[in-house]
């Protein structure tokens, strides 16, 4: 799943160096990303924030190796990368347990081991006892928990998340923020979390990268202050979110 496996410098998990991505050719060509560099440290929770059309999803696809950059390099070393989307994209004909087993089947994990791991992962996302349910019997938040368990079943240590909680109500989202933070710590994951919700970015990220639109470029990077676990409605979060929102607004108005 890696784009390149060149050795990484220092303790970075993901290195994106001066990449561009152009879709199509000639007159119809669209530059999604132009001259973007992002480094993600091992164990870092990086929130990536931008208005629509800033190439956020493209960026994650490049890191996941689903697409190749037009120029520049994306390197994840020997890290294993998993990805989650806004839709849980669970296979509706399989039970929750069987869904989580799929990545392990790909990796040829023996059956007994798979069973054990499914139980552990369900426990981790707090869905013990839901193994035999089908996706359509679950709520949206629970489906995202299953999707997270499935992503972790890939034995990945880098998790790419493309607006994973975008379709959930605020309260469910809050709970899942806590859960994700807990799992990120327990599993020492490196997370790249794409969102267009500024508070969500500040709530979760060690750092927030702000992207410009059309083409996508890094405008600025903010280190987030505040002890974890944070509350999305705390004054400290609100203050930092306001600063970033102002900066983002400048960017949006330039294109509106």
């Amino acid at each position, binding site marked *: *799943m890696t784009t390149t496996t060149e050795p990484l410098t220092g303790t970075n998990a993901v290195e994106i160096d001066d990449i561009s991505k152009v879709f199509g050719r000639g007159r119809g060509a669209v530059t999604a990303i132009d001259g973007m560099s992002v480094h993600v440290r091992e164990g870092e929770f990086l929130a990536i924030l931008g208005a629509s059309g800033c190439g956020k999803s493209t960026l994650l696809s490049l890191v*996941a190796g*689903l697409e190749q950059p037009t120029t520049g390099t994306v390197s994840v070393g020997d890290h294993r990368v*998993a*990805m989650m*989307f806004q*839709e849980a*994209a*669970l*296979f*509706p*004909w*399989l039970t929750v347990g069987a869904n989580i087993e*799929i*990545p392990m*089947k*790909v*990796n040829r994990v023996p059956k007994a081991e798979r069973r054990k791991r499914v139980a552990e992962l369900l426990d981790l996302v*707090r*869905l*013990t*006892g*839901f193994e035999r*349910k*089908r*996706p*359509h*019997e*679950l*709520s*949206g*938040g*629970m489906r995202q*928990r299953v999707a997270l368990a*499935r992503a972790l079943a*890939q034995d990945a240590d880098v998790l790419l998340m493309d607006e994973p909680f975008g379709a*959930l*109500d605020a*309260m*469910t*989202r*809050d*709970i*899942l923020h806590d859960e994700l933070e807990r799992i990120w710590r327990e599993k020492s994951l490196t997370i790249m979390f794409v969102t267009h919700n500024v508070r969500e970015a500040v709530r979760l990220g060690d750092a927030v990268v702000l992207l410009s639109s059309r083409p996508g470029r890094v405008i600025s990077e903010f280190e987030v202050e505040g002890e974890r676990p944070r509350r999305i409605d705390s004054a400290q979060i609100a203050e930092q979110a306001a600063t970033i929102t102002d900066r983002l607004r400048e960017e949006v108005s330039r294109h509106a």
Partner: protein
Amino acid sequence: MPETRTGDNAVQGLDALELQPKRGTAERSPGEIARAVWAGTWPKLAAVVLVLLAWQAVVWSGWRSEWVFPGPDRVLPTLFNEITTPEFWEAVRVTMRRAFIGFALALAVGVVIGLAVSQFKPLRVAIGSLITGLQTMPSIVWFPFAMLLYGISESAIMFVIILGAAPSIAGGLTSGIDYVPPSLLRAGKVMGLQGVQRYRLLIIPAALPMFVTGLKQGWAFAWRSLMAGELLVIINQQNSIGWALSQARQLNDAERLLSYIIIVLAIGIMIDLFFNWADRSLRRRWGITQ
């Protein structure tokens, strides 16, 4: 909502309201079950009674003489007589054997063509619309050609059944594969599903509901082609439903003729019930309908 209890804070968001209550697990008394069965049965019984009454009414009107158009009072006893004879069961056996073999061959041909078309773009451009075109063709027009190729034989009938049913089966498979949700394809790609495993774990199960719809349509065409075939391609002395029908006509035996028409209808309804059941249980399992 007993299903949400996990001891922990698994389901606390507003989200929990989305959970579906469990269906149909409540205990039901025998009286309630009987009422439910009756509620499902009486419209069908009413329909049968209505048809019989209408039929009898036409007979009473004297539109045709009774030896050409007998009423249910004469046809139903003949029908019950008929289904106790070994010849009848032999005819049904021969016809159903042809139907199943023909359908199985059409299935094999349809799956191969459907897979090929969904895999290779040039092939799709070349024969994709041809398949749709074949589906619109009344299969009976193939019979003269089939008889020229195979003579008056079972192969001629099989040939037409395959031409009738395979395009629908291939079409169902191709559209099933085409309409696998892109989000699932992407999830499969991210998880590293490829090659045979990708087909086994993702594409085939995802395509199954539409494939079954194709099978159902294919069966309908196969059954029609078979009936037309047995009436047109009358193989010497071989008993079959089609042969019984044409023999009854030659002997001006309207009662037997109508009995066999009822048999053809009954077989059609039974197979249709089977496909509907398969379709429904698949959709329920896939979570497509509630």
